[in-house]
């Protein structure tokens, strides 16, 4: 599962090493990537909210 989160993290940046990508393609299931993508988006929203909270405190 951590591998799926790692792949999604790099996808937010939009870049992935060829070697790592080949490994992902062999080991990750689409379901795991989709789940990690949705959870990561929620975490991303929470992180932005925390930043906003910190700035407007």
């Amino acid at each position: 599962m951590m591998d799926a989160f790692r792949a999604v993290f790099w996808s937010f940046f939009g870049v992935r090493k060829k070697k790592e990508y080949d490994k992902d393609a062999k080991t990750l299931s689409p379901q795991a990537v989709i789940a990690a993508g949705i959870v990561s988006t929620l975490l991303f929203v929470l992180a932005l909210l925390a930043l906003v909270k910190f700035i407007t405190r």
Partner: protein
Amino acid sequence: MSAAVPAHDSAHHDDHAHAHPTGLTRWLFTTNHKDIGTLYLFFALAMFFLGGSMALAMRAELFQPGLQYLNPEFFNSLTTVHGLVMVFGAIMPAWVGFANWLIPMQIGAADMAFPRMNNWSFWLVVPAAILLVASFFVPGGAAASGWTLYPPLIIQQGISIDMTILAVHILGASSIMGSINIITTILNLRAPGMTLMKMPLFVWTWLITAYLLIAVMPVLAGAVTMLLTDRHFGTSFFNAAGGGDPTMFMHIFWFFGHPEVYIMILPAFGVVSAIIPAFARKPLFGYASMVYATASIALLSFIVWGHHMFTVGMPAAGNLFFMYATMLIAVPTGVKIFNWIATMWQGSMTFETPMLFSIGFLCLFTIGGFSGLVLAVVPVDITLHNTYYVVAHFHYVLVSGALFALFAGAYFWLPKFTGNMYNESLGKLHFWLSVIGFNIAFFPQHFLGLAGMPRRIPDYALQFAEWNMWSSIGAFVFGFSQLLFLYNVIECIRSNRKAADNPWEGADTLEWTHLPSPAPYHTFETAPVVK
């Protein structure tokens, strides 16, 4: 990409085996993905000229200050229906047309998964377009609140609003059915060996776009249904006097509206990702990162809608959140731009019309992206909101973004669609007139916006006269040069300049490597095996 079956096997043996209807009934009852693709493309072209004529009417009025040709109410209707027709009638159906033509051929499928529903999806858009156009002729004139249909203005107008709401509903139903069809086709009908990560990027971008459509079209349907009940059934969703809130409409509308921008632009990314490698004669740089970036853009598109409404009085924390999220969505988009440039780097490039339009897309869409970043900054947006700067920004995104990619795709696949080559010189002339006309029309609108000229007005103060004159001149050059495209398409269909099966040296997807030109009526009845 290579396949185990010999080229052209399974491709054209069945062409005359069973007759299909001809004439009008062929088009009315067709379940063939290519026929339906053609219908969508011609429909979109017709709507493009209709919406373009409305734009030229507005630019004629704005050529000089003062009211010349149009009364202000009609001008407002033109602004509104121009937006609706271009978004829902031209750009979206054109992409669905390409999807219908290309997705089955690019994944090695015989047709779309639900051919009858495919027919129904297309024939729904026609009554919707008729409703929109007919709304000009009812008492009170067509919708005049802008394409965003904001209440309370939209609540106050006549029956044309109900026609517009019905049109939006029908178009939404059509889009949802089209999306279900596309997703099912891609996930279930791929040829053996065509794994997800071997799919051409156009297929990937459409898969993600289809999910976006399914997610947001019902939201738009909900919003316009609430408008309808506010108008006729005594509800007060958006009526402050009854305890409702007009800004709630804006939130719901833009929760649909921002992913909608990506619905129009993601397939453009797919087309450009097919064309640039073909004419640079190099594989696409960073295929996997392109797929990842597309998925990220799609997810992030759901959390940036508030940047359309920085001025409505959201709390500072809300404004900051949407500002940060909007700026960050530029990161995966920027990665795509870098990947396309890296694909061209040290490539053996030639500059036929599809490549010219793709490079035009790359340069001008980047300008649109940057002006989007400018508008993402809250204090700047508070000054520029509702000015011509915004008009310039989204035309750089949607015209030189989506439309230029549509032209690139049309020129690229015309030989496969028709079996004939288009006129290259005419195509290049079309490109140069378009790119020059477009920039003269829309670049000065940045200056007008910075100087404070509001959008959606038929008359303006004298200090805006000069750039408006230039903008109108550019718009007419751009508008009339599109007739060259129309001529080129018709001439190509009727000409005898036979195209090779693969006229582009670097094109390597299944439709080029395994099918003759023109692509036969039935293709891939036996699926190719992709290695």
